[in-house]
């Protein structure tokens, strides 16, 4: 398990538990008691820490390497998942994965960023940072879902669109704009969930949904705290302050009316109990789809557009 710096006391306690467990072969009741006592302490510590994570700490949790990613959600929640590749213009971009599948009995189109879980897969998925091909594939799949009346689920987890020469040459800006446009145009339900990092234009490209959900410790922002700090504070050191100022937590975004619901995470974050986080997300998506079922395509589209036309009419009270 990877520990974040603010989780040090927890890491120490869990280290002790581990040690005791090694001893437990040789010894008796006392150790079991001690382990139970320490475990209670860990839980208490976790509860206290995670109840009041700062925005910067949440940013770290959202980027946690052990946090479940797109592929984990899809393999647990979607049956018959059939990935569909390519933008039909230039390439297949593995930073964004999309495809058809069955979610709780219904055909769906699932599209999302994949960051990868080890060096090899991270490189293959370009750390979840998509190039124009990724957004053009997303657009293609959104429009296909529209044609067949299949609801779309998007899972957002990206530091942002890839900043590179090739990406710019092939129209990164246009590709993102068209993906946003496609989200806003389709006449089928579109549920978007921020499962980790919602980084800027690369995130909104997939997140203009009828319902936008966020996991409890995920973040969603116009710029990374580091980027904001280097511009406004002229020092990357100020990332903590920038995270604070940007109001990037699920809780703040809910207050601002930018997202519709916050999905609770297991104690200590999604990375501590991936299965529980995945089920919670599945339930929330299912409920959101149920709310939209029966609505006519034109209504779904009109409501989605009205919702985004209103964005910014209210600030923090």
């Amino acid at each position, binding site marked *: 398990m990877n520990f974040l710096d603010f989780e040090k006391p927890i890491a120490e306690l869990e280290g002790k538990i581990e040690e005791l467990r090694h001893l437990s072969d040789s010894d008796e009741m006392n150790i079991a008691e001690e382990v139970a006592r320490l475990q209670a302490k860990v839980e208490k510590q976790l509860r206290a820490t995670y109840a009041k994570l700062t925005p910067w700490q949440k940013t770290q949790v959202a980027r946690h390497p052990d946090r479940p990613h797109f592929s984990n959600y899809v393999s647990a929640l979607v049956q018959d998942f059939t990935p569909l590749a390519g933008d039909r213009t230039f390439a297949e971009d593995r930073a964004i994965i999309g495809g058809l599948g069955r979610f709780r009995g219904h055909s769906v189109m699932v599209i999302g960023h994949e960051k990868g879980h080890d060096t090899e897969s991270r490189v293959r998925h370009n750390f979840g940072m998509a190039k124009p091909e990724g957004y053009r594939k997303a657009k293609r799949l959104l429009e296909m879902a529209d044609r067949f009346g299949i609801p779309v689920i998007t899972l957002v987890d990206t530091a942002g669109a890839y900043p590179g020469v090739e990406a710019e040459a092939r129209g990164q800006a246009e590709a993102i704009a068209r993906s946003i*446009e496609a989200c806003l145009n389709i006449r089928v339900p579109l549920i978007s969930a921020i499962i980790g990092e919602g980084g800027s234009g690369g995130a909104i490209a997939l997140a203009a949904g009828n319902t936008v959900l966020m996991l409890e410790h995920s973040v969603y922002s116009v710029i990374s705290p580091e980027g904001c700090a280097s511009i406004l504070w002229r020092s990357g050191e100020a990332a903590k302050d920038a995270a604070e100022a*940007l109001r990037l937590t699920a809780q703040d975004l809910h207050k601002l009316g*930018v997202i519709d619901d916050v999905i609770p995470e297991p104690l200590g974050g999604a990375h501590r109990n991936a299965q529980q986080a995945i089920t919670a997300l599945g339930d929330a998506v299912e409920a959101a789809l149920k709310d939209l079922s029966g609505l006519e395509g034109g209504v779904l589209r009109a409501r989605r557009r009205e919702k985004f*036309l209103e964005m*910014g009419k209210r600030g923090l009270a």
Partner: protein
Amino acid sequence: MNWLTNSVLPKIQKLVRPREVPENLWHKCSNCGHMIFHRDLDANLRVCQHCGHHMRLPVKKRLEMLFDGGEYQRIELPKTPADPLRFRDQKRYGDRMKDAQAKTGEQDAIIVAHGRMGGLNVVIAAFNFEFMGGSMGIAVGEGIVAAAELAVLQDAPLIVIPASGGARMQEGILSLMQMARTTVAVEKVKEKGLPYVVLLTDPTTGGVSASFAMLGDIQIAEPGSVIGFAGARVIESTIREKLPEGFQRAEYLLDHGMVDMVVPRKDLRATLVRVLDLLLNRKPAGEVLPLPEKADSPARDENVQP
């Protein structure tokens, strides 16, 4: 102090004293280095007469240049929440706003105006780069929405002229949301069958480029404008190498198929009028097409088989 200032009569002193030259009488072209007299520069629409380099044109000058006789009516934009996040970096956002408002005499970074161009009624939403780098927050989003609504209401084409570094960080996620909001707005203009033209000026980057600014029916760029999504410095630090010559310039976008044309400033007005006339099937010089005469044949209905 010398003999001149000490002993010469004040009237004579006045004659020989070096006149105070306001610094901005002469401009140095940032491209070719030539010194240009300010009147010549203004007369040439702030384009260097030596090398053709296009300097940034103040937004009101641009509107004057585009509308017939330089005349247009601005519309008042609805009030939006000021400082919705109560944002503070080393300075309060509220104070930054006050400074920008005092400096420019404007409420925010966008002007929405309507008037005639080649006799045709058009709506223009133009960014003011001098106002916090033309950054897009809620008020700018509101400007695009208002311009789109006005265009639909007046049955007029919409021209948007971005000059913006991107989203306004100080409005956080709400500025990101303006990308989706402005996309909906311009979509409504297009669905009404009205032309939506984007005139990309220096610079058009970040969240502005990745939303309404890349969705025009016709995309026109001014020579040399920086247009792109990611900032050049960010890209450089990612790839750790020098960027290609002319990277993210208007001509580079033209070569890569991202804009329809790169048009020198002096030809912009004529080009825009021509494009709109053609899209709307109007005769040149703003004449309205006469209704087709239907002498013998009844109106053709494509759906009715003979």
